[in-house]
């Protein structure tokens, strides 16, 4: 697959919640969203299989989000991959790679306007070495320690693109 092509997309309702501090399902004008708190770090997991067309040049993860109510301040995220490789990974414990930061960005001046932010993640350890045909989990958390916007951040979609 060529650089710049989409590999996989995730919608809010395809998430898996952790046992504690899970993002919550919500709606905004009939659009499903995942709500992420501004004080406590809530988490969502998405599972997938890296497409066979992946060319091993790393990925860029695009996060499509809105501020629930905030019209000032910033919202940021972090992303981590967990490879679930054949005959190797024991799923009885988590094994996520180091979280990659989606730099906090200023929210739109109208709550409900979509903002898209991204982080480029290099192939290898930062992707937990997820390779073609591997199943994997993507973890997304709001960067509550560094962002400043009040209220929920609402996740609308995630796209993984080959860098």
């Amino acid at each position: 697959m060529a650089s710049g092509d989409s590999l996989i997309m995730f919608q809010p309702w395809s998430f898996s919640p952790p046992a504690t501090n899970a993002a919550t399902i919500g709606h905004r004008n009939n659009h499903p969203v995942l709500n992420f708190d501004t004080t406590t770090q809530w988490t969502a997991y998405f599972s997938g299989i890296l497409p066979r067309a992946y060319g091993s040049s790393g990925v860029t993860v695009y996060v499509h989000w809105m501020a629930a109510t905030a019209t000032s301040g910033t919202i940021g995220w972090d992303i981590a991959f967990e490879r679930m490789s054949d005959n190797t990974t024991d799923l009885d414990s988590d094994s996520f790679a180091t979280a990659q930061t989606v730099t906090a960005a200023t929210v739109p001046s109208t709550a409900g306007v979509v903002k898209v932010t991204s982080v480029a993640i290099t192939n290898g350890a930062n992707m937990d070495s997820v390779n073609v045909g591997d199943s994997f989990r993507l973890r997304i958390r709001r960067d509550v320690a560094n962002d400043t916007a009040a209220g929920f951040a609402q996740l609308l979609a995630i796209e993984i693109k080959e860098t």
Partner: protein
Amino acid sequence: MAYLDNNDRLTAASEWMREDFGEVSITKSEVLDAINSLDVFLEDNRTVINNAIPEPARSNLSVNQKILMLQYVLARRLEARSDG
């Protein structure tokens, strides 16, 4: 002087920010500042508030009963504003 500890104030700010009463043009640290100031104001003015309650309620209700009464008044004021 504050009555709530930092954790309680943070909890109050967090719960307030989980509500959806329209757009909010201040940051989460400014929300916490506002919560802190309201807590200080209520503590500094507890005598004034208590004195606003007429007898025999003032002397016969417990502190918790009077706080709950104030909470109901504030809740009804919010509903009235939302209705209007």
